[in-house]
């Protein structure tokens, strides 16, 4: 029994400190206003305070902490991307994740489980090899394995997948992990608040004020505040924010859905993804299968669920893991993904001085939480892009310098 629990058990919960201070009034002025109290926004606030000493910071959240995509994703963390810039960025994120429970003193249940991306065609297998080679070049443990290796790690898998899409191999990514998504936001929020950052929930930004080509403040439904810098970290709400400053972006919003089954005793220790079958699945520490698929087929600003999603997912999952047919779907939900044309994020400075963007996360925002917080904080502090995010700069589209992550387009998540 850990001492921490022994103490709370014996002394009672009254002495437990609050995670987040009671919310006060908005100040008139902040150095930095971060829009979006999800993982990214709270992480950025934390690193601004911790690593750059900038503590006069407000995080404005229209709903509740971590209530957007931070609390709606399927918690997968990996760095087996296709492009060198992607691999470097996500590997840095993964390294931060590993020490994060200790740093934030909250158990994120960061759990390295190994990650299989199944290939059902020789085309997919080629892409797996490409990713594996780029990963290995950058010191990331990914390799192409045969169907037998998949079968050994995934009990009960039907390598024939019902006959239409047999598993021909897989990209195995040993560092692939899961973590409690909510806790990441809470941990960062607590750490940031402890250094003086203000977190304002149920505070909606209604406008961004500019003068002379730079940001001067934001308007909210609780009043206006002045500030030198605004950082937009709002994923699915990005186009609404960029519209406030007339900044056209290539971002489109698509719902991304997920579901869980009732809890059963753990049988699946790894994370399994199939791009061809549009399924990804892992089993949580509660025993639920956590599952997702591709984004919805058309753009929409909504977190409504659709029945087609669970139908399709169930249909394909039981091709892959036939025995799960008897499991029951307990709950489904959706988030709003902000997709870019090259499947890479848009980060850093923008043509508007003092306005910083952290967006375009598509379906992989959660895994980038620590590193985007850290690099965006550095970018805001220095007023120029951190070198790790320079390839993801806002104006790369205007220059036709897209990131090649779309090469792995056949494989999601």
């Amino acid at each position, binding site marked *: 029994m850990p001492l921490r629990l022994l103490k709370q058990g014996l002394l009672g919960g009254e002495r437990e400190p609050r995670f987040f201070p009671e919310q006060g009034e908005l100040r008139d002025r902040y150095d930095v206003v971060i829009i979006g109290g999800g993982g990214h926004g709270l992480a950025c606030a934390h690193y601004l305070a911790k690593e750059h000493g900038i503590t006069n910071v407000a995080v404005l959240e229209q709903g509740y902490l971590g209530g957007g995509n931070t609390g709606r994703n399927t918690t997968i963390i990996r760095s087996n991307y296709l492009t060198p810039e992607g691999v470097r960025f996500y590997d840095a994120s993964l390294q931060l994740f590993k020490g994060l429970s200790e740093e934030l003193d909250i158990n994120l249940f960061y759990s390295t489980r190994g990650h299989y991306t199944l290939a059902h065609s020789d085309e997919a297998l080629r892409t797996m090899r490409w990713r594996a080679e780029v990963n290995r070049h950058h010191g990331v443990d990914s390799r192409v394995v045969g169907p037998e290796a998949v079968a050994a790690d995934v009990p009960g898998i039907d390598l024939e997948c019902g006959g239409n899409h047999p598993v021909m191999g897989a990209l195995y990514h040993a560092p692939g992990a899961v973590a409690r998504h909510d806790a990441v936001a809470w941990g960062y929020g607590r750490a940031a608040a402890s250094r003086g950052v203000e977190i304002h929930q149920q505070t909606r930004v209604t406008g961004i004020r500019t003068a002379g080509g730079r940001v001067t403040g934001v308007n909210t439904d609780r009043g206006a505040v002045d500030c030198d810098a605004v950082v937009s970290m709002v994923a699915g709400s*990005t*186009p*609404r924010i*960029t*519209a406030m400053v007339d900044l*056209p*972006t*290539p*971002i*489109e*919003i698509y719902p991304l859905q997920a579901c869980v089954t009732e809890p059963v005793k753990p049988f699946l220790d790894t994370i399994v993804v199939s791009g061809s079958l549009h399924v990804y699945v892992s089993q949580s520490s509660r025993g639920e299968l956590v599952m997702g698929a591709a984004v919805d*087929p*058309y*753009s*929409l*600003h*909504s977190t*409504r669920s*659709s*029945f*087609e999603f669970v139908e399709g997912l169930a249909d394909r999952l039981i091709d892959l893991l036939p025995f799960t047919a008897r499991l029951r779907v307990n709950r489904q939900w959706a988030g709003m993904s*902000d997709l870019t*044309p090259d499947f890479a994020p848009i980060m850093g400075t923008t043509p508007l001085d003092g306005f910083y963007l952290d967006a375009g996360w598509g379906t992989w925002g959660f895994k980038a939480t620590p590193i985007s917080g850290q690099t965006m904080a550095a970018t805001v502090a220095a007023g120029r892009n951190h070198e790790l995010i320079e390839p993801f700069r806002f104006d790369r*589209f*205007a*220059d*036709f310098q897209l990131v090649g992550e779309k090469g792995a387009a056949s494989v999601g998540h």
Partner: protein
Amino acid sequence: MKVIDCPVIGTRPLSEFVYGGEVRRPPMDAAELSAVADHAFNRSGAPTLLREWWFHRPTSRWFVLERDTLSDRIERVVPPEEVAYAIPTL
């Protein structure tokens, strides 16, 4: 499942359609790079009433629908002539 009511082909389930994205007009010859990039990449991402292309597979027919991307309501079927434009030819 979403249902699309169309005056031409009747009430149809969404699964019969392919989404073709918003209606946009390309820049013509000798456009600035910025205009080209804007057309190729930028989109009306914020919630709005959007004209979009939708392809109905069983009848092999394209429709332009005006849809509210926030409420998901289809407000109007737009005649294609309204969005048509001429292209320069040799």
